[in-house]
Each structure stands twice: as C-alpha cells, then as structure tokens.
C-alpha cells in the first residue's frame, strides 16, 4: 500500500496536521496496512477540531470501504462497511422504506465516524444516540485481525468503542437497526420564540419526533435567546422531493462576509422570515436533516483563518442560568455567526465517552481570532462549572482538566482502551491535546 502525504484538516480549518494517508479499498487491504503500520482510522473528516487529525503521523482513510454488505427488509438491520456515508444510506434505503434511526446534521459523515463519536440527531430526546441503534461492530485491531463485538458479547469493549474516538481499533463495518421511513418528505412547523425562557419552555413542551431550534446569537436584552423552533414529522406523502443542485464555495471568503453587522442583519431577517403565528412547510428529508450539505465546502465561508465550533450540553438544573450567561457573553462579544443551534437532549448515550446528557445543548460557530478563542475558553469554563460537557467532535479549545471533569467515566474507558491498544497506535491529535489516554 502506498502512503500519500496529505494535510489533514478539521472541518473548522483551524487545527491541521501533515500526515501520511493510506486508503484501502478492501478489508483485506486494511488488515495488511494495520499489521505493518497501525494508525488511526478516519472517515469523512467532518469533525470540527482534531479528532481526525494525526499530525506528523499516519492515518487510514476509510471512505473507500463503503459497501452495503446485507440488508434485512424484515428487521431493518443494515450491515455496512464503515466508510458508507449517512446520505448514501438515506438515498438507498428511504425509497425502500427505511432510514438510519439517528442522523447528524451532515450526511457526509460516515458510519465509522458516527459510531466513534456516538453522534446525535434532531430526535435525540426520543431516539437517543446513533450508538444505541448499533447492533454489532466489526472491529479490527492493530494486529489486523477482526472481531465482531456486540453489547452482549463484549459489553466493556463495546461501550469503549461507541463514542470511543477510534481508540479501540478500526471499525471495518457495523450492523445498525434502521427505522421505517414512510415518506421522502417531512412536514416542518416553524414558530418564533421571543426569548430564552420562552424558547426553553417550547423545547421542553414539544412532543415532535424531530425538534431543533435556531438561536440568534446576536440578540441581547429583552430578546436574549430568541430564535425559531422547528418541529418535524415524516409525512405519508409520496410526492418526489425537489432538491436544488449542490453549490460549491470555490474560494476563501473575504472577512466582511461574516462581520458582526452582516450577521446581525442576517439574523434579524432570518428571524422575521417566520410569521408571528408560525408556519408549516414541506421539505425533502435531505433539506431538513442536512441543510448545509447543499453548499459544498461551506466551511470556506469563514476564510483562511477558519472557525471554532463551541458545543456544550447542560443539565436541566443549571441550563437556564448558564445559557443566559453564555448568550450574554456571546451577544456582547458580537462574534457569533448565524449558524447557531439550541436543542433539547435526552438521557440516551451508548458509550463511556458519549456526549449527550438530559438537558439542553447549545452550538455556535465563531470565526477564528484571538478574541473568539478567549470567548470560547470562557464558555468552556462555564459549561464545566455547570456540570455540562463539551463535544469532542466539535472542540478545538478545551483543556485536559475540563475533559476529566466533564467525562467522569474516562478512567474506566482508559482501562479498556489500554488493553485494546497497548502501544497507543490509534492516538490522534485530539487524544494528545486533551491527554485523554493519560491516567488522571
């Protein structure tokens, strides 16, 4: 296998690293590679920070291992190679009446990446995380041998692998249980929320299958925390969805594109676009689940400097107070981009390092600058203080101490990981930056 020298880049384009990359097209080739030169597996590199970066090291690109191995239309169980993308699953199986039970906000994410971060979707409060629908994982160790693990056969290793950041080995393929998909269209109801309290109450009261909120990170004072609640249900309509052709951002955007006045103006328009009494619209599944995928390489909109995504989850007890503090800091700083999400989360999680907890999750993008790094550091500290967590799939600025505080099961995870990968062959930049494999 030839190795290609490549620049690995987090989706936020701030954390990068030069690495040698292999890209096997068959499981047997992957096994050969691991035997000779074990290295972390990476997917579509849609993590924002450094989860899929291994600077000055090697990595294995899994995206060419992307075949569906079997599908049982009775049970909805799909066995697929780890490089399969979520979009590919949706495109192939939605017409057959099935879809992944959990889908992150980008369809480019791979099966392996979704398992390794135990991702959540717009239905987390009802369906839990991706890992809760994983029936079995075919895990390849540094010796190139594959073992199929299930929650029953290897409970400890399974819990360390789901959300395990690739540290227990390469996920070659996995079985997931999909859910019925009655239609290729989804009915979306949009309502305004005038401020944070109202927004949180609406989110709590919502009984919709899919529920997500857009939050205006520039609003302050009376309107602090205002936003738009989106509740959605699959329809039984058989109309074929319309979808516009994807566009591509061809170059780094100039700085003024996301300057504070532009963002304030945009957010005001975006908010006012929804009539006071709310409105209902019919969308294609992909438009609803992966709204940003229509613009390829949208991360270039932030220009060369890149951006940071801050995502935290806060427990119910502290959520309102902490969100208020956070949103004040954010609005005062005037640094937020229009991409901001407030969502309710349930208790569901399948791994020791899974992100979600019962409460609320807030996610925002900030163009990279000294000021925004200081702001995110403050937000990280607030999340830690509130007993919340930062999401490893997004983080680029947390500290090792915060990670320990936020993930109490880290030590238990480390025990299993050290047994599975004693040489530390699967470490990535994220692992080293947050010292996730260093005993406390």
């Amino acid at each position: 296998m030839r190795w290609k020298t490549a620049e690995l880049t987090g989706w936020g384009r701030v954390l990068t690293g030069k690495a040698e990359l292999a890209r096997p097209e068959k499981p047997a080739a992957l096994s050969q590679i691991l035997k000779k030169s074990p290295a972390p597996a990476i997917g579509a590199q849609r993590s924002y920070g450094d989860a899929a970066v291994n600077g000055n090291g090697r990595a294995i690109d899994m995206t060419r291992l992307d075949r569906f191995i079997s599908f049982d239309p009775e049970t909805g169980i799909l066995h697929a190679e780890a490089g399969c993308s979520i979009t590919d699953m949706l495109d192939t199986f939605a017409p057959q009446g099935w879809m992944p039970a959990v889908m992150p906000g980008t369809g480019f994410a791979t099966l392996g990446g979704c398992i390794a971060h135990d991702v959540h979707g717009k239905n987390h409060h009802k369906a839990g995380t991706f890992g809760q629908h994983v029936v079995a994982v075919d895990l390849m160790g540094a010796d190139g041998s594959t073992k199929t693990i299930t929650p029953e056969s290897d409970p400890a290793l399974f819990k360390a692998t789901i959300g395990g950041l690739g540290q227990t080995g390469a996920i070659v393929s996995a079985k997931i249980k999909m859910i019925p998909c009655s239609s290729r269209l989804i009915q979306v109801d949009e309502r305004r929320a005038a401020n944070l309290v109202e927004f949180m109450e609406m989110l709590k009261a919502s009984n919709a299958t899919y529920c997500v909120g857009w939050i205006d990170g520039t609003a302050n004072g009376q309107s602090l925390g205002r936003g738009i609640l989106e509740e959605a249900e699959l329809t039984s309509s058989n109309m074929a969805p319309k979808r516009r052709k994807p566009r591509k951002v061809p170059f780094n955007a100039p700085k003024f594109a996301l300057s504070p006045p532009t963002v304030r103006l945009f957010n005001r328009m975006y908010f006012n676009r929804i009539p006071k009494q709310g409105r209902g619209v019919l969308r294609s599944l992909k438009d609803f689940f992966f709204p940003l995928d229509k613009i390829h390489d949208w991360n270039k909109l932030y220009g060369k400097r890149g951006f940071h995504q801050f995502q935290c989850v806060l427990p119910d007890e502290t959520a309102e107070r902490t969100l208020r503090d956070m949103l004040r800091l954010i609005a005062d700083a005037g640094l937020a981009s229009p991409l901001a999400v407030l969502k309710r989360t349930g208790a569901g999680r399948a791994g020791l390092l899974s992100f979600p907890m019962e409460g609320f999750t807030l996610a925002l993008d900030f163009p990279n600058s000294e000021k925004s790094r200081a702001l995110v550091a403050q937000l990280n500290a607030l999340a830690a203080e509130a007993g919340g967590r930062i999401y490893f799939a997004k983080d680029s600025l947390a500290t090792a101490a915060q990670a320990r505080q936020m993930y109490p099961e880290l030590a238990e995870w480390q025990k299993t990981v050290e047994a599975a990968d004693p040489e530390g062959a699967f470490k990535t930049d994220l692992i080293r930056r947050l010292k996730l494999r260093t005993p406390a």
Partner: protein
Amino acid sequence: MSQTWIILGAGSAMGRAFARKAATQGAHLVLAARDQDDLDRTAADCLARGAASAAAVLFDVRKPESFAPIYDAAKANDGIINTAVFVGSMAPQDDVDADPNVGDLTIQDSFTGPVNFLHGLAPIMEARKGGTVLGIGSVAGDRGRIGNYIYGAAKAGFHTYLSGLRNRLNRSGGHVVTVKPGFVDTAMTWGIEGMFLVASPEQIAQDLWTAHEKRKNTLYTPFFWRYIMAIIKSIPEPIFKKLSV
C-alpha cells in the same frame, strides 16, 4: 426489460463505481474479478442499490479458462448483454526495462487478455442483436512517452481492436465505446506524485453511462483530456522525442 452488464475488473475502484451505476439503473450484473470474497461483497452492495441480479464470477485475465463461466452467467439472463472492461495493469517502466517478462504481462493484462475475452463474447452479443462494449483504454495510448510506453502501446493496441469491434458489432445493432480516462483517483494513482486534475471514479462512471446511452464512439473522461491530448499529439516528433512529459 433489464439488460445485463458484465463488469470485467469489478474489483477496481472504477469497476466498482460503474457496477453501482448500472445497479441503480436496475441492470442484471455479472461481476468478474480475482478476489471472490470481495466480489461477493460488491455483489451484495449492488443488489441493495437496485440491481435486478448480481452474479460474482471469479476471473483472471491471464487465465482464458476463466472466461467461459462469465459468458454462461451472462447468457443465463434474457435480453441484451453489455460489457465494461476495466482490466489492465501498469508496471513501472523501470521494472519493464529490467525484465522483459514484466512488459509481456502488462501487454497480456491490458491488451491480449481483454481482446481474447471480447472476441469470445462478440458472437454472443451478436446473437442477442445489440449491446454496448465499454472498453477502458487510456490517454497513454495516444502517444508513446518515455514514462510508460509499454503500457501505452498495449492500450493503443486495445484502441485499435475496439475500433475494429465497433465496425463489426455495428452490423448487429451493437456498439463499442473507446474510453480514454485521464487521471482517476484510484488505488493505482494514490500517492503518486505529479497527478493533476484527478477525477473521482463516480464521475467517470457517470460519463461512461452517458456515453453508453448516447452511443459515443470515443470518450475522453473527464472531457478536457480530449484537448490535453490534442495538444500532446500535435507536438512535432522532432521536438517530442526530446521531451519527457
């Protein structure tokens, strides 16, 4: 009615991508390559994506006895039989220079092997009155260059064969597309320096399907290679012989 597609070299990235394309069109597939386990998996993948059927048949272009089972698998389906030929090998010119046997193998894999296969298939296609052959040649076959002229010569020979076969199959309603891909992002080109304007296998597969539907004679894919090669072909030999492009 669903047509049949034989995919020779279905284990390659391009072969796999084209098999998927044909699968989404509801074709019957006969997938042929050297690795049975891997073929079985590609067959399952194609079925999930909509193929009417998918047979996985072991095939080695250096073993003519492996051809008949593929013909038989295709004949088992009714209707038109099409073929896409993705086999070929490109040994580094240095290896060929060091050992002439290596050059023989390149010629066998990229020229005489596929020709023998197609020659056995032609009467079967004729009997079914139609069908397309997508023959994957190479821009390397357009002009001999110091870097890989054994491979280039093999592909040039294959191009000439394809043009003759086009002439022949045309009489029974069949068609042949001579395909000349530029650089494609596959395991063959992965990590090789000096690659530019690299196309994805999916992009090539889409182009191949369109060329099949439109009955194109020669397809450069991506299209701009037609112009790149026009320039390379137009360089006068007295100058060209001194270049190392």
